[in-house]
């Protein structure tokens, strides 16, 4: 099995998994809402009118046909239905919120996956000292402090007490913008981005730091490090130039996986900072029983997890030529 067939099989697996999740969602939602007309139809509609509504939405068809219509709409047409709350198509709303989430998460993860590994190398370099223990403790503490808590503390301290940063939203209201890019490329946006990005990146920093340290410890025992030292290279060059480069692989793949999970996984940060992202939208959908919105948002989140896992697999092969087929040990 070469890399191409491996990736192809992973891709097929991705599609199959996604279909299974879609199916699960369909039946779960049907379980919760046996007759969607009750949610769509205003009260006091006559029986004939209700029937008309059912036909319009295809609800008079047998369940299996509804299921296939659902699959066709959500996979090929990108139609996720009409939001009960906004009375508008779910697709564009979700896409907009998705971009907002991504801009926050990608920035935060980039920061933590640049700083984290660098710290991890430092921990390996200064092994056995107080720095190492402190670093490990700090890494574990960062990972165990819930983000909504650190977020609240950050708002309270930097936002309210010191007044350095705005505490909610993406821009100071009211603002004019013609689109996403127009919103994002401003200083005001960066000002708003700072606190949430800080909180998210601190939370995510622990993992790459510890992973980096563990991989580094393995690599430090290898022959080529001895060779580097024998050549008389400075310890800093050995560490950052030779060992770290070889230890980056697990960190990079973890970064991809983290981005996938972050799309849906960090609702709390968006809630604390009133960031108009996908997670907050989904929470609102759950609160207002906006089934199509919740369903659409979940599909996108699950898709992102799958897609980024696939990217991680692909990266693995590209970055480490020695690994032709990852997962062979199975």
């Amino acid at each position, binding site marked *: 099995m070469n890399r191409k067939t491996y990736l192809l099989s992973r891709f097929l697996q991705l599609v199959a998994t996604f279909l299974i999740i879609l199916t699960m969602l369909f039946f779960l939602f049907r379980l919760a809402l046996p007759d969607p007309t009750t949610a769509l139809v205003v009260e006091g509609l006559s029986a004939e009118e209700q029937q008309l509504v059912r036909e319009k939405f295809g609800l008079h068809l047998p369940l299996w046909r509804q299921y296939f219509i659902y699959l066709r709409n959500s996979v090929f047409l990108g139609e996720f239905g009409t939001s009960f709350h906004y009375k508008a198509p779910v697709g564009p709303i979700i896409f907009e919120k998705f971009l907002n989430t991504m801009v926050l998460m990608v920035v935060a993860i980039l920061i933590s996956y640049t700083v984290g590994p660098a710290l991890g190398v430092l921990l390996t370099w200064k092994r056995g000292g107080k720095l190492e223990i402190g670093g490990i403790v700090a890494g574990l503490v960062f990972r165990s402090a819930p983000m909504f808590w650190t977020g609240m503390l950050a708002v309270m301290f930097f936002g309210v007490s010191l007044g350095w940063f705005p505490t909610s939203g993406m821009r100071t209201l009211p603002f004019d913008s013609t689109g996403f890019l127009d919103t994002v490329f401003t200083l005001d946006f960066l000002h708003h981005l700072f606190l949430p990005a800080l909180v998210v990146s601190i939370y995510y920093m622990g993992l790459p730091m510890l992973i980096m340290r563990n991989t580094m410890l393995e690599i430090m025992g290898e022959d080529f490090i001895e060779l580097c030292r024998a050549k008389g290279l400075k310890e800093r060059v050995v560490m950052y130039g030779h060992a770290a480069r070889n230890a980056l692989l697990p960190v990079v793949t973890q970064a991809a996986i983290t981005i996938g999970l972050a799309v849906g996984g960090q609702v709390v940060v968006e809630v604390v900072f009133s960031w108009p992202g996908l997670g907050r939208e989904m929470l609102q959908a*759950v609160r207002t029983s906006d089934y199509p919105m919740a369903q659409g948002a979940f599909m996108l*989140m699950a898709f992102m997890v799958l897609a980024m896992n696939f990217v991680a697999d692909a990266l693995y092969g590209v970055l480490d030529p020695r690994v032709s087929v990852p997962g062979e040990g199975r």
Partner: protein
Amino acid sequence: MKKTSDLRRSAFWKIYGKMFAEPFRVVVRDPLALVGLFLLTFIVVVALFAPWIAPYDPDEMHRKVEGVLYRLADGESRRLGAERSFPLNAVTVRGDEAIAVGGEGRVARYRNGGWVEERTPTEAELFAVVSGARTFAAGDGVLLREEEGEWRIDLEREGTLFKGLALAGDSGLAVGEDGTVLKLSPSGSWEDVPHKERGKMAAVSLANENFGFVVGERGMLLRFENGSLRREPVRAFRDLNDVHAYAPDFAFAVGARGSILRFDGTRWQEMFGPETRDLRAVRIVNEKLAFAVGPFGVVLKYDGTSWTVVDTGYRRNFRGLGVADGAVLAVGSDPFVNELSPPTREHLFGTTHLGRDIFTQTVYGSRTALLVAILASLVVSVIGVNVGLVAGYFRGRTDDILMRIVDIMYALPFEPFAMILVLIFNPSIWIVILAVGLLTWRTNARVVRSQVLSIARRPFVKAARAAGASDFRIMFVHIAPNILPLVFLQLAVAAGFAITAEATLSFLGLGPPRMHSWGTILHAARLSGAWRTAWWWIVPPGALIMLTVVSIFFIARALEVLSNPRLKNER
């Protein structure tokens, strides 16, 4: 027969006992893990003994009573001294001293700009105090006498709520709500004054030794003259709360709905009052100056002809007035919800916007956190270990199918999935456990499976199979003990995850309703909007989540050595 089963049992304990003892030894040897173990033990103890540790009911709305003393003067009012933590019902002024009495039999003396609390032999609420030649205080069933700073019980009468006290020269009067009227004889003892009045009495005042008034409910107005009580010819119809007889020809009585009556030496007359709210107390300074006070900071001033409202800017309830030599002191008190109080001795972590004790809520929160952690991690381990065992042992098609399911589970992001579950079912602690259980076993299954794959190839498994052991027996008797350290590790990790998960869902308002958890406290703080400033509300629950989870991480880190001995040299 019995012997064999005994043997079998001891063998069982030998195998499993060792497996339990080893992780413990590892944890104790690692300093970080030891710290974790201590922290965790502490939290478990707190959770177990929560009702004994927590000083209050977590839902109790704490009220606070403050007594305040105000100096009312011409056109201004000034607050004096620090507030007391008990209600002040009455005050009397003598010279530059004031004595205020209130709930729980407490007495405070105001002297030289500061309060000194004095000990009394009672805990009954005190309603009246008077100071002249002698000093008395009266309240629920007791009359107290003060001599040289020492308070003694002068008289006890069960069931009588003494509401009013008056002194004039050697004479004195005390009235009780139940109609008791006591006269102070020159010898110093209290004697009942017989009368035929029914109705609750509220206050008494003496202009001199032989002349005074008693007021009470439904406009009761009695004249005290020469040792006997007699009804005044004019009768108001509203409850009267206080009376002050300044001279035999000048007295005021005040009562419900802002009613004010004036005595001009012959008869009582209703006066126009600018207030429609209740008046609680009235005191006359001289012919040209008098004050009346009531709830919601109502202060009225009499200037010799009419009453006007004085704006003190103060909204708490006034209950009593005291005058002497031009100094007018008003005491007030009111129970109010002790909202958003920063940490104090009564409330170690302060209170919420509803006056609930955050320390108590935090203590009870540890129960929810540990309950979820234990149940969820057990569910996770049971599913994960069994799936991993079966997949790793049988391999082939079984393995493929199970691992595909695991792959699918890996595609479900936790929080959104839990939100969907809450949307479809209703929020409860079981949904939290279900969500954690359904989504976390995937890791356990994978890890256990890979370990089982290698163990199943070892000679002793082959030997067991050759000896005719069943698959079930091989899996659970021969393989399972060997993966126990790993199971412990995963159990710990799952427990940490479960605590965070529960806190997260509760923070989002999707957690178990009517249960106190650290996440719920933070959720309430966020909803109230007070979290931007009320640090005491946010810091404790979050810090406890962090401490609990990090102590689990510390322990897990040590256990990792057991399942992955290679790490031993790296630490």
